[in-house]
């Protein structure tokens, strides 16, 4: 039958309330009611969103806080790791120079009093005395108040604070940059020859000549010239030349011992007391007249 437009309300109502339409309306109503009762629409949407969750961005207020927390943790971790690295390196240092190398500007290091004492004891006596009187160190160490040591750079100088348990400074030591440089040179055997060090260029003697003159000094003065003969003895190779610096610093004069080890040459620096070195120089010059700056070439020819 062909469809035609309802001509009156009766026809229209008849069609509207036809079984087929009622079933459809009931079906739609049941969908609405079941949604109200069972929230299936919300559950479906929710389940879809759960399924796609991992593909969505980590955005929004709480994620931003989370990211900031992670960034903050990373920043702190870096600060702590850097600090711990420097502390570890400093604690592992066996020489004063190694320890100083680990101190960066604005990043001091903290050592136990025990550790610092050990490093202090590795220094040549004359240098150690310049840093702090061993008797003062002994006093602080024995009364038990010195617990830790804090070292920091102050410009080119080094500041050392001996601290008690409450971080109060018991003693403050200041090491000027020239002394630090000197310690570094003492600690390290410089690769090269005495000619590489301008302060020695005027007074370079053959080892034989130097030690002959040294023997002329009274026995009790020998250590005033060569404070650590044991250190020189421990070096591989043999001493070929000795230089005496033109400059005196705080009552001390630097001596350079050039050591030949196979084909390599290196210079060990030590400090001698000014008066003792002057005496030695007079012996050296008496014996030879003027110091021989060409000893190296003579030696080389030998």
């Amino acid at each position, binding site marked *: 039958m062909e469809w035609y437009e309802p001509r009156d309300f009766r026809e229209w109502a008849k069609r509207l309330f036809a079984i087929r339409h009622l079933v459809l309306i009931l079906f739609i109503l049941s969908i609405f009611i079941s949604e109200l009762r069972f929230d299936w629409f919300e559950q479906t949407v929710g389940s879809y969103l759960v399924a796609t969750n991992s593909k969505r961005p980590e955005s*929004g207020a709480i994620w931003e*806080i989370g990211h900031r*927390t992670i960034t*903050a943790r990373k920043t*702190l971790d870096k600060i702590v790791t850097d600090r711990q690295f420097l502390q570890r390196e400093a604690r592992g240092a066996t020489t004063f120079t190694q320890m100083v190398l680990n101190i960066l500007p604005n990043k001091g290091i903290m050592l136990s009093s025990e550790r610092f004492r050990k490093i202090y004891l590795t220094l040549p006596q004359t240098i150690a005395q310049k840093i702090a009187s061993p008797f003062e160190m002994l006093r602080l160490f024995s009364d038990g108040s010195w617990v830790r040591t804090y070292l920091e750079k102050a410009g080119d100088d080094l500041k050392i604070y001996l601290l008690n348990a409450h971080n109060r400074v018991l003693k403050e030591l200041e090491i000027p940059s020239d002394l630090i440089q000197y310690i570094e040179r003492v600690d390290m055997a410089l690769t090269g020859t005495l000619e590489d060090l301008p302060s020695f260029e005027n007074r370079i003697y053959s080892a034989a000549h130097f030690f002959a003159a040294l023997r002329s000094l009274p026995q009790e003065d020998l250590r005033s010239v060569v404070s650590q003969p044991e250190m020189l003895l421990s070096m591989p190779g043999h001493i070929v030349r000795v230089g005496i610096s033109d400059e005196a610093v705080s009552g001390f004069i630097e001596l350079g011992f050039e050591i030949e080890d196979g084909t390599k040459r290196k210079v060990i620096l030590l400090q001698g007391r000014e008066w003792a070195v002057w005496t030695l120089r007079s012996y050296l010059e008496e014996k030879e007249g003027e110091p021989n700056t060409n000893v190296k070439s003579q030696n080389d020819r030998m």
Partner: protein
Amino acid sequence: MAHTAIIIRMLRIVFYVALALSSFAALAGIGIFFVAVKDLPRVPEPLIRIIETPPTEIYAATGEKIMVIGGREFIPLSRVSQHFIQAVVATEDHRFWEHHGIDKLRTLKALWITLFKPGKVQGASTITQQLSKNLFFSFKRRYMRKFRELLVALQIESQYSKREILEAYINQIPIGVGAHGIEQGARTFFGKPASELTLAESALLAGLPKSPTRYNPYIHYDRAKKRQRVVLLRMVAVGYITQAMADRASYAELNLQKLPARARTGSYFLDIVVKSLEERYGPNVVHHGGLKVTTTIDPQLQSQAIKSLQKGLIELEKMMGVHTKTNESSGEKVVGPQGALVAVETNSGAIKALVGGRDYSETEYNRAVENKRLPGSGFKPFLYYTALEKLDINPATVFIDQPVTIPVIGAEDWSPRNFGLKHEGPMILKRALMKSVNSIAAQLVEKTGPEEVIRTARCSGIKSQLKPVYSVALGTSGVSPLEMASSFATFATGGVRHEAFWISRVEDALGRVLEEHIVGGKRSLDVSLVYQLVDMMRGVVDEGTGSIVRRLGFDLPAAGKTGTTDGYYDAWFTGFTPTLSTSVWVGYDKGEGLWDTRGMGITGGHGAAPIWADFMIKATDGEPHREFVIPSDIRLERVDLITGYKANDSTLNPMRIALREGQNLYENIVGDETLNDSTILFPSWAP
């Protein structure tokens, strides 16, 4: 018939239009859904993971926690009072346990009200929607934001159990006074864990998240109580409690913890702590890194400092006849004078108390640190030290208090006047400081030069810019109370300067040390000269312009100096014992002097010294009588305060002075070659 056809046609049109619109709406809904889903934030797994951010905790020197920045204290639902859970559910979303993220009936009702009742907007957010909003979205009212918030709520409902959702919700809601989450809230307001909250307390706290500021019980107690009543009635309506229980809870007394007041105890102080931390580590680390910061503050001293300053300012207002109050009609606030107090431990530089104004909640401007005010005569100790050092004079050296005019190259002559505009004639140097005689100070600075005075001030710890002019000796360059307290501490330690500090240790959340303060002093002033100065400053406290301190009952050995500026804009008193140096400043923030009801100017001795005394009496309570250490080359003598002659039985007004090795009283009588063209008195007039 034709009429019926028209109606049917109309109905048909309406039906098809409705069908078309519905189809369009459905398609648009699907489109909007996919657009909204595109940028929808990811929901974390588990939900609580992102709530757990470590707080930065700031501790006092005594170990007491004084501030927590950021962070959340997460607790499981089992550790929350059942009353609170019920109160929250009843108030915020009573069908929480039934719906799936959206309360459709409530939403329809809210929609009806919003659309058909002009001027009324009703919210229908469920707890899940609120959680979604708080965790992921801004608070801007936008339809798309609202829709996304709903979608995330639906996801949260599908992904987590109701208990997990409620747990996350109550652990992040803002309760007020800086507390987030119920555990922090319960501890902040009632000093107890969330598990022990009573019905009345639970109802109060459950009502706060709606507007933590508006219902803050510390400020608007009545409003908070009304809100509590609303919550209780909701609980009755939902059936969680009976009306009788609600009534009892409503009338129950609330023992609000005084913690918020205490948390504010160090607010000015905490400001400088947080600022320092942010400068060193950056704001992100401070607010999200979970630092453990140990400061130098002593909570008891800090609390006392606040009380003393507030009490002193009230007394000052009475003296002046003004009151800090809000004018009800205009709403304008009549603001009285302000003040600041800083107390520094002398042998370390640690700040033990710092108050930067009368009330932090009114003004956060930190007058203890940022306010560079003229110290007036409070600066004279730096001049007197310089004079003792450079002019080879001693405290018994005699000067004449008389009008002086000092020529200034390229400027007008300088003619400082005495405070009382009177001149007393001859007097010894110590008395000149005790009486704060400007004419004698001017004579001294003319001899020493302002640069030397500035050098002494710098050695002592003054860092502010100081103008190299004669008047600098009379305090015409601005300094802060913190600088004054810190620099006077250098006098207290015999010339050993300690940098003022407020953070002693910083650790990360795992307890790894980031920094420690090394307490080291540096000798910057001569110990014997400092003792001579301190002895003169003791005279200020015992018998001079600061003697009110003694009259108020402070009896431990102390030294100090008052300061008052022209026009009475600033009143200072800075003084110290061997262990504690404290500076007090009072004055208006802008352009008003301190005048009493009789029209007399208020000096440092009357405006600031009483506050100092009140604080120091409490701060040093129980401390032993501890004298300033006398250096070995110092000897104490008694002299006539006018002639400077050694006192004998017939001396009417003997005064104790301190002399260094090599200094003797005879020199005072014959005068000093370096100064005999000046105003030092020679014995022509002497008996």
